[in-house]
C-alpha cells in the first residue's frame, strides 16, 4: 500500500476534476503533402500546354485570401484545340471494348484512393472546405464514382437503353466550385464509361483538384485527348458550350447560367443536362427522431458552408415542436467550430470567394430588413480570408427573399407548418426542385409527403446523402438530367 500522505492524493484528485470544456487544441493537417507548381497550363491531348495567349489568373486559398498559384486562362483557340483533341481521340475510345475502358476507370479510382490525402488537402486549400469533409466525403465519393461507372462500361447493354447503346461523341462539361473534384468525377466517370471523350472546364476559383486529376489520368495512362481540361472563367465556359465540335453539354452551376446555356443551345438541339440551384426544404414532423433531426438540419445547411445546391436551406418545422427544435438547434449551432479548414476538428470552413461572401451578406441583410429574426453563432472568425458565421433566421415569411432565393451559404430560414398538406405546399412554394428532407418515425406519412414533393431527391431521416449508385438531379428550375446510378448513363448515350 502507498504510504503517501492522503492530502496529496486528494490534491491530485481535485486537480483533474476541473478540466472545463474540452477544447481540442489545433490539429492542422500538414499542407506539405501538396506541392504546387508556380503556374499550371491547360491539359490538352495528354499533356500540359501553355495557353495560346499566355494569359493566366491566380487561384486563392479562401481561408487566407493568399494566392496559391497561377492557372492558365483558356482562349477560344485553346478550347478549339481541346475539342479537336477530344474529337481525334473519340473514335478509338468509343471502339475500345467496354471491359478495357472499364480498366482505365478502375485504375483512376484506385489512384484517387492511393492519393486521397494529397487530394483532400489540395481541395481544402483551394476551396476552403473542412479537411474532414474532403477526407471523408469528397475524395472517397470521387473514387467511388469512377469505380461504379467502371463497372457499367462493359454492361451497357443491360442498362435499359437498348441492346447496343452508342456514345454521343465529344462532351463539354462545366463544373462548379463547391465540390470541384467530386463534380469532375460525376461528369467524367459516366461520360468515359459510355465511350465519350471529354472537355472539362473546372470553376475559376477551384481549378487545382481537376489539374491534379489530370496527373492521375496520366498515371492511369489514359490515351491522350480522351479527357482535356481547360481552365478559365465564364468566357471559357461560353466558348466551350458554343463550340460546334461538341456533341453534348453537361453543366452544373447556377440556374441563371443554366438558362443562358439552354437558350444558346436551343437552335442546335444539342443534348443538354443541367444541375442547377435549389432551395431545399427540410421538413420536421412532431414525431421525428429529434436528436438525429437536429443533426440532419445542421448537416443540411452547414455542410460545405452551405455551398450545396441541394442544401436544406429552408427548415419547415411542425408548430408544436418549433420551440423545442429551435432551442436545440441554437445550442448545436453554437457548438460548430468555424475556422482553419485544414484543422481536423473544424466543422465549417471558409466561404469560397469574396464575391460569394458579398452575396451571402447581401441576402442576410435583406432578411433582417424584411423583418426576419437573425441568430448568428458567436463563434470567433479568423481575421484573414472569407468567413461567415452559421446563421439561423426565424420569423421568416414565405415571401421573404431569404425564403425564396438561393443563398448558397451557411444561412438557414425557419418556417413552421401545422398539417402535412401545409408542409408539402410550403416546401413546393419555390421555383426550384432539387432536394427535400422529411423527418418522421411514421414511414407511411413520409412516403405520402415524398410523393407530393416537387424535388428530384427526397431524403427521409437523412440529408445530404450521396452515392455513386443513386441518381441525383432536379425538377423545375433546378435543372434536368440525372447524375449517378443507372440513370446517370442516359445523358451520355445516344439511342
Amino acid at each position: 500500500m502507498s504510504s503517501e500522505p492522503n492530502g496529496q492524493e486528494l490534491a491530485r484528485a481535485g486537480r483533474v476534476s476541473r478540466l472545463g470544456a474540452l477544447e481540442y487544441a489545433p490539429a492542422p493537417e500538414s499542407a506539405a503533402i501538396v506541392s504546387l507548381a508556380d503556374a499550371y497550363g491547360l491539359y490538352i491531348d495528354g499533356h500540359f500546354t501553355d495557353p495560346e495567349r499566355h494569359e493566366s489568373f491566380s487561384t486563392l486559398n479562401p481561408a487566407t485570401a493568399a494566392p496559391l498559384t497561377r492557372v492558365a486562362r483558356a482562349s477560344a483557340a485553346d478550347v478549339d484545340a481541346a475539342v479537336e483533341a477530344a474529337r481525334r481521340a473519340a473514335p478509338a475510345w468509343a471502339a475500345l471494348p467496354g471491359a478495357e475502358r472499364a480498366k482505365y476507370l478502375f485504375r483512376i479510382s484506385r489512384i484517387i484512393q492511393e492519393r486521397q490525402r494529397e487530394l483532400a488537402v489540395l481541395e481544402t486549400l483551394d476551396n476552403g472546405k473542412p479537411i474532414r469533409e474532403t477526407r471523408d466525403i469528397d475524395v472517397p465519393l470521387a473514387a467511388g464514382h469512377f469505380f461504379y461507372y467502371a463497372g457499367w462500361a462493359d454492361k451497357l447493354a443491360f442498362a435499359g437503353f437498348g441492346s447496343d447503346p452508342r456514345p454521343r461523341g465529344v462532351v463539354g462539361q462545366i463544373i462548379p466550385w463547391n465540390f470541384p473534384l467530386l463534380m469532375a468525377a460525376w461528369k467524367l466517370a459516366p461520360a468515359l464509361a459510355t465511350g465519350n471523350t471529354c472537355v472539362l472546364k473546372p470553376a475559376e476559383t477551384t481549378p487545382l483538384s481537376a489539374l491534379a486529376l489530370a496527373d492521375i489520368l496520366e498515371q492511369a495512362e489514359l490515351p491522350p485527348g480522351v479527357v482535356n481540361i481547360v481552365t478559365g472563367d465564364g468566357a471559357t465556359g461560353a466558348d466551350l458550350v458554343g463550340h460546334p465540335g461538341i456533341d453534348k453539354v453537361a453543366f452544373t452551376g447556377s440556374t441563371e447560367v443554366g438558362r443562358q446555356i439552354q437558350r444558346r443551345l436551343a437552335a442546335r438541339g444539342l443534348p443538354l443536362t443541367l444541375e442547377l440551384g435549389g432551395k431545399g426544404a427540410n421538413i420536421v414532423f412532431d414525431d421525428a427522431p429529434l436528436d438525429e433531426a437536429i443533426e440532419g438540419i445542421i448537416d443540411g445547411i452547414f455542410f460545405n458552408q452551405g455551398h450545396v445546391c441541394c442544401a436544406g436551406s429552408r427548415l419547415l418545422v411542425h408548430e408544436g415542436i418549433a420551440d423545442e427544435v429551435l432551442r436545440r438547434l441554437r445550442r448545436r449551432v453554437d457548438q460548430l467550430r468555424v475556422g482553419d479548414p485544414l484543422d481536423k476538428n473544424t466543422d465549417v470552413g471558409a466561404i469560397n470567394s469574396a464575391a460569394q461572401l458579398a452575396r451571402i451578406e447581401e441576402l442576410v441583410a435583406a432578411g433582417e430588413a424584411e423583418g426576419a429574426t437573425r441568430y448568428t453563432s458567436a463563434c470567433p472568425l479568423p481575421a484573414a480570408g472569407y468567413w461567415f458565421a452559421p446563421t439561423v433566421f426565424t420569423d421568416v415569411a414565405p415571401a421573404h427573399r431569404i425564403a425564396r432565393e438561393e443563398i448558397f451559404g451557411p444561412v438557414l430560414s425557419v418556417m413552421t407548418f401545422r398539417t402535412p398538406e401545409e408542409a408539402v405546399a410550403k416546401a413546393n412554394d419555390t421555383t426550384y426542385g432539387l432536394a427535400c428532407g422529411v423527418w418522421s418515425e411514421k414511414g407511411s406519412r413520409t412516403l405520402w409527403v415524398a410523393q407530393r414533393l416537387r424535388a428530384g431527391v427526397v431524403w427521409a431521416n437523412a440529408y445530404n446523402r450521396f452515392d455513386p449508385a443513386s441518381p441525383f438531379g432536379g425538377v423545375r428550375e433546378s435543372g434536368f438530367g440525372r447524375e449517378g446510378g443507372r440513370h446517370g448513363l442516359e445523358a451520355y448515350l445516344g439511342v
Partner: protein
Amino acid sequence: MVEIPSRSRVPQVGSEAQLRTVLAALSGVDAVGVTARAAKLATRSPKRETKARALDLAIAMVDLTTLEGADTPGHVAALCAKARRPDAEDATCPPVAAICVYPDLVATARAHLAGSPVRVASVATAFPAGRASLPVKLADVAEARAAGADEIDMVIDRGAFLSGRLGQVFEEIVAVKEACGSAHLKVILETGELVTYDNVRRASWLAMLAGADFIKTSTGKVAVSATPPVALVMLEAVRDFAESTGQVVGVKLAGGIRSAKEALRYLVLASETAGSAWLEPRTLRFGASSLLTDLLLQRRSQRTGVYARREHVSVE
C-alpha cells in the same frame, strides 16, 4: 452548454401507466443517424495540452474493476495500491475514481483505501444477471453497504423490461435506491441485451426517474458492451433529463473499453453531447480494468515523446 433549470424537479411516477406514458412520449432514435453521429464525433481528437489533461481526466474517471470468480483479497489489495497511485514512477498522476468489486471484497478494498479519495464501488443485486428475488437483491446491497461501499452498481431486470413490466423494473430501482442510503446508485442497463436504441433511451429515463445517480451501460459480462452510439443515446438522455428536471445524472461506460484512444473518444462524445458539466469523475466514469494500463502508457508517451514500454506500468 446545458441550461439546467433551477426550480424544476423530477416528476413523481405514480403508476406503471403513467411511467409508460412518460417513456412513450420520448422521441424515437433513428439508428442510422445516431450511428453516423457517433462515427463523426469519433474523428475528433484532442491534441497536445488538451490531450494530456484529457488523459489525466480519464484516469481520474476510472472505476478500476475486478469482477471475477477468481478474485482474492490479495488481488484486490494490489488493485487498491494501483488505484491510489496508478503510476508508480510519477507522483503527479491522479488516482482513479473508485475500485469496483463484488460485495464480499468491499471490506478488503475499504481497508486498503482508508484515507484515500478513491471510492469503493460494489456490484450488487445478483450481478450480472439480476435473476434473483427482490429481497435477495436488497440483502446483496445491504451487505455491500455494511462493508463500506460508497457506490452501488445494480443491474436492472432486463427480462422484465423487455417483456414490458416496466413498473417492476422501476420499483426495484426505487427499492435499491432506498437501500443504498447515502451511497451513490449506478443503474446498469445492460444495453447489449436491450438491443435497440429506443430501448436504451427509455431504460435510461426509467432509471433516472426512479432515482439513479448514474446510468451505466453494461456489466461487461455479455457479448456487446459499451458502444459509441449507445453512449451517445445515454448522454442525450442525461442532458435532456437535466434540462427538464434540474437533476444531473452521471453516465458510466463499462465493458470493452481498453484503449486510451477509445476513452478519449468517449470524452469527446460526452463533451459534445452533454457538455462540460459531465467532464468530471462525479458525472462520468469508465468501468474498466485494462484501460488504465493504456491510459498510463499514453500519459507517459505524451510526456516523454516516445512510445512507452508496457513494463513501465505495474501489473495488478
